[in-house]
């Protein structure tokens, strides 16, 4: 038994280290366990789907893609170890992590190694540190919050807002950004409610929102907590419009909250319900392979691979050093690269610009109310 185990282990180890000819090596470090497991698993599955699609069609410039996934356990200390390990293996591009704290601790390593890092973090400050190797896959909060604040001030015409946010790096970043943007537009924050990740009971928060009597409520929580908050706010009959981001009106929230989700509005950068046929087709392929509908992290992972494909094909060679330089200022259009789903432009900081939507949940479905053009236009 013992010998058999050792033999199996050795076989696995040998199989993994077997020399690979003309392959593009990508290394992904993601939150596959711990509190970020939903984020990381969606991200990983999106990557795997795109890699399988591209390899089926012959790869990039005739080279197959090989991707390894490492689990950061949602812990920055372990993320650093895994990124170090990944970089020691000289990947073409580093993918992930998704948590902003983990991105912060690993970005300098990728920069030292001069390897481009395409990550999922959304905190505003990530791309403001002048690291030329760091790229986003979604809007940073500094791009999305001004759009939400504008909507609250000009469309809803709210003078006062209650902000309900989850106290982790994602929620705190969003809360700080929206507060700043609302202040610019003379909208007062009358209740500033911090909640815990995984919080089950929002009754006290609902009472506080009611007492503050705001013109609108901005909700910035993870998907499951969003559903619980929506249910409680409806139960306590809060009449003010409930406005949020991608995480308030996503598919998962609608499933969990049922009727309580109806009427919730949000700004959506990337959604599987976007009124774009290519996105709908992606959602179906993903659901067929993994038996569930992805959240926006699934799309982010998927797009990261097609960004790599577009950049590599533009360069005409697999050049790790030239990658970051080529991607800065590049616009990728779906006409040239259908896998990119929607036109996207990268700026000099590694931030992206893309069309986005204001959507509302109507009758248990996310309905797009307004298409917000690219900011550069």
């Amino acid at each position: 038994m013992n010998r058999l185990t050792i033999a199996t282990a050795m076989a696995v180890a040998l199989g993994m280290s077997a020399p690979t000819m003309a392959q593009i090596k990508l290394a992904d470090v993601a939150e596959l366990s711990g509190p970020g497991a939903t984020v990381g698993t969606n991200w990983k599955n999106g990557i795997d789907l795109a890699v399988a699609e591209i390899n089926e069609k012959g790869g990039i410039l005739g080279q197959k893609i090989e991707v390894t996934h490492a689990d950061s356990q949602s812990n920055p200390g372990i993320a650093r170890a895994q990124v170090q390990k990944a970089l020691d293996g000289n990947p073409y591009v580093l993918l992930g992590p998704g948590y902003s704290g983990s991105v912060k601790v690993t970005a300098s390593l990728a920069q030292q190694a001069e390897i481009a890092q395409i990550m999922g973090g959304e905190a505003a400050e990530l791309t403001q540190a002048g690291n030329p190797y760091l790229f986003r896959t979604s809007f940073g909060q500094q791009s999305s919050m001004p759009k939400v604040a504008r909507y609250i001030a000009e469309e809803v015409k709210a003078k006062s807002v209650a902000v309900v946010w989850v106290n982790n790096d994602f929620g705190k970043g969003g809360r700080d950004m929206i507060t700043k943007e609302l202040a610019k537009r003379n909208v007062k924050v009358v209740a500033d409610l911090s909640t815990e990740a995984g919080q089950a009971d929002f009754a006290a928060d609902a009472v506080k929102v009611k007492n503050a009597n705001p013109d609108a409520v901005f909700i910035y929580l993870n998907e499951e907590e969003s559903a619980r908050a929506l249910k409680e706010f409806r139960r306590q009959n809060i009449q003010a419009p409930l406005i949020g981001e991608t995480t308030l009106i996503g598919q998962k929230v609608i499933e969990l909250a049922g009727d309580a989700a109806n009427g919730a509005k949000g700004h959506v950068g990337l959604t599987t319900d976007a009124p774009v046929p290519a996105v709908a087709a992606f959602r179906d392929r993903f659901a067929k392979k993994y038996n569930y509908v992805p959240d926006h992290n699934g799309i982010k992972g998927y797009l990261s691979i097609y960004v790599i494909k577009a950049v590599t094909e533009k360069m005409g060679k697999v050049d790790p050093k030239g990658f970051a330089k080529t991607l800065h200022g590049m616009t990728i259009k779906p006409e040239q690269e259908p896998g990119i789903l929607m036109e996207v432009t990268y700026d000099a900081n590694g931030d992206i610009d893309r069309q986005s939507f204001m959507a509302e949940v109507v009758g248990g479905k996310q309905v797009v109310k307004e298409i917000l053009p690219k900011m550069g236009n």
Partner: protein
Amino acid sequence: MTGRTKTMLAALALAAGIAALVLVPLLLNRYGLYILSMWAIMSIAAIGLNLTLGYAGQVSLAQGAFVGIGAYAAAIITTQGWPLVAALVVAVALCFVIGWLLGYPALRVQHHYLAFVTLAFSTLAYLVFRNEEWLTKGIYGITGVPRPTLFGWPLAAPLRFYYFCLAALGIVFAGAWWLVRSPWGRAFMALRENPMRAMSLGVDTRRYTLMAFAIGSSLGGVAGVLYAPLVEFIDPTPFTLGLSLNLLMMVIVGGSGFLFGPLLGALISVLLPEWLRFSEGLYLIVYALFVMILLAWSPTGILGIVDRYLARRRARAASAARSAAMPEALP
């Protein structure tokens, strides 16, 4: 085997172990060095908990919080331009005082009740790390924690920093070795085995209970002071209850109350999940199963197995000697 050869063998094994810890890293890449540095740091924290739990018998679920206090002290002080030594002094003093205060409930409650008191402290510490933004920068964390210089020698390179952590571990280990052999260590053990009897023999149980907490906690602080420059970034997420439970597991799996126990426990906790990564998605499940089976097989940890084996051998040798001596004794 005579007592002398046994001592020789033990010394030889120790020398081989130290040589391996010094020489093997020369062959490792940055990832391997990072993991080994992490092992050294976690070992220091676990040695501290082993003093509190293994020797003095006080269940603490707050060791992770002390690592956090040490890490934050190091991050805050060194990013202000002060040397790491200053952070070390502050962290050790702070953890000693807080550990001493946390020991007071231990004078009134024992075992799992005490675990709950320390658990509450652990949660409280996390909330302070996260919410007191003016001091800790909250959830965003503190970036750019510098690696120290020692007598003008920069320790930024992974290999040098590893040796620095290893040296710290060596010093802490030697200190713990001395402590458990001193009258203090004996008082700790008396406290664990039978507090009533210890008191009747004149051991100041009150002072030693507080001392056990304070010393164990300050070693947690030492580990934290090394953790911050290793990762070069600190946010509250690593210092949740999970770390305290992990450290508790290291002590128990290695062998609670054995001097080498925490080192082995940390080896399993830090390195085993890394070795098991070849099983991809299953690695944490395999790891959990291993720990469960190990503890079901030997509740006293790995060194408990060795201890039982040695005890059996000694018993066999003694009974063989007895039976060999028997015929001569009888006429």
